[in-house]
């Protein structure tokens, strides 16, 4: 039985032509430019999960039989790989169902009080906005909004003006899912650390594309999803700095989080409460219920794959494609490209609109006429696109995103297709 499915031959450096063979979905003429919504999955990830389902399907922990012991070993190995991928200790991460769930878990777990302030930016994905707004409403806290402008260019001085002695947490994205703009996370972390403010990073668009070391970065929390980094759907990760993992009360509790081998000192069942709880050791303290075992093993295989290719190679490749496409699109009459011109501030995303043509129509044309998959609309960035304080006066845009399996030829075909569409409407 192969438990750790080997990374396929194609992943031995960023040889796009070879590694594309590892992705069955790419064996068509279709061009997939929606990886920041959800990436494709290589065979090795599916095989790793199949091995679990077909060969040692059992629950983890506390099992005394072979399949459970094997499942536990593989799960723990995956946990260590995923933690290592972001420079964390295994005790500092918890698996969730996705990044949204991870951010909600952080929000549920933080003791934010009436009058505390939470700083968000107007470029946040709804998943890093709604949990904090809800939390603020529940406890009477105040949300302060930092507006980085239409291109998402972060001004540290302007941001600092929002910080005061009441600021409890700053929750910001690392890479904008709308524009691909990269926030200066290290500098933000320094500002927060100097003032004793907690810093939550939404890493959903960063972890799949960039080398991250949470200890060097200095954030308190970081959330990301498995399905955007070659892994399966149904799994996300919350990193909690060890001191928070140790000291905070988990916002979601249940089986697995509480140590049932320690004698309960409750005087009666009516007095049952947190004061009498003994939590399990980290990270189980935070892992409520049966964890996503197959998904964790699959995500571990995805980490293997990305590390075999080289995350720096992935970053350089995808940013290079995005920079090329952004430059070419800017030269097409009628096209407005959003996001930074400075390549250093760019990730793998290119967002644009074609004058007078709804973004959804552009997406339909790309799909139906050119067999190119892009995402259109507001990309869950409500505070950027919608409402009285919207940053931009368009309801959405067209977003193309690139990953390790996209080729320069695909980027050229995409540019050519957009050029034809723009010429048609010009």
């Amino acid at each position, binding site marked *: 039985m192969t438990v750790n499915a080997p990374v396929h031959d194609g992943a031995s450096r960023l040889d796009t032509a070879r590694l594309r063979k590892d992705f069955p979905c790419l064996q068509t003429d279709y061009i997939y430019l929606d990886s920041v919504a959800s990436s494709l999955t290589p065979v090795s990830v599916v095989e790793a999960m199949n091995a679990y389902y077909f060969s040692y399907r059992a629950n983890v922990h506390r099992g005394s039989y072979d399949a459970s012991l094997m499942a536990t070993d593989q799960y723990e190995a995956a946990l260590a790989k995923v933690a290592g991928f972001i420079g964390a200790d295994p005790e500092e991460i918890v698996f969730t169902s996705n990044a949204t769930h991870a951010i909600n878990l952080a929000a549920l777990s933080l003791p934010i009080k009436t009058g505390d302030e939470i700083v968000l930016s107007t470029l946040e994905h709804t998943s890093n906005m709604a949990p904090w707004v809800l939390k603020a409403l529940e406890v009477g806290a105040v949300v302060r909004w930092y507006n980085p402008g239409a291109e998402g260019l972060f001004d540290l001085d302007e941001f600092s003006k929002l910080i005061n002695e009441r600021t409890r947490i700053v929750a910001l994205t690392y890479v904008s899912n709308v524009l691909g703009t990269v926030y200066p996370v290290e500098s933000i972390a320094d500002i927060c650390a100097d003032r004793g403010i907690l810093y939550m990073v939404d890493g959903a668009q960063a972890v799949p594309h960039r080398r991250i070391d949470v200890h060097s970065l200095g954030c308190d929390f970081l959330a990301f999803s498995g399905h955007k980094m070659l892994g399966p759907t149904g799994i996300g990760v919350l990193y909690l700095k060890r001191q928070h993992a140790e000291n905070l009360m988990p916002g979601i509790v249940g089986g697995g989080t509480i140590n049932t081998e320690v004698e309960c000192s409750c005087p009666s069942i009516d007095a049952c409460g947190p004061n009498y709880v003994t939590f399990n050791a980290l990270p189980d303290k935070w892992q409520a219920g049966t964890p996503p075992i197959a998904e964790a093993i699959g995500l571990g295989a995805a980490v293997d794959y990305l590390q075999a290719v080289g995350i720096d190679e992935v970053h350089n490749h995808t940013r290079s494609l995005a920079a090329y496409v952004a430059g070419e699109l800017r030269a097409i009459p009628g096209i407005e490209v959003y996001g930074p011109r400075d390549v250093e501030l760019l990730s793998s995303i290119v967002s644009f609109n074609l004058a*007078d*043509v*709804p973004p*959804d*129509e552009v997406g*339909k*044309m790309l*799909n*139906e*006429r050119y067999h190119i998959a892009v995402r259109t609309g507001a990309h869950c960035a409500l505070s950027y696109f919608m409402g009285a304080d919207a940053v931009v006066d368009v309801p959405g845009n067209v977003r193309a995103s690139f990953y390790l399996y996209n080729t320069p030829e695909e980027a050229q075909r995409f540019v050519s297709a957009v050029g034809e*569409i723009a010429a*048609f*409407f010009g």
Partner: protein
Amino acid sequence: MHELILINARCGGDPELGRYAEFLRRKLADRAQVEMLELESCEDISAVPSSLIAQLMGQTITGLPVVVLDGKVLSSGPLPNWMDSFEMIRAAIESQVRTT
């Protein structure tokens, strides 16, 4: 000059059809007069002139929007993308030109 009418409804039509009509007016400026009729509801056809209703009688209409070229239903129901639907309309116009 051809007469192209787009019939839409707030209840179940294409919310972007107005912008598409604008595009068609620009693109077909010298070949067709483009009009858009927006029904307030799917039951209320008062926005449709009786002369047009008379023309549409007996023709098959399966959904909204309805595209009518010179009194004949060209399509009904969701349109393909703007490029493909424009080509459909242009082909119909050219077909009529050739036969007249």
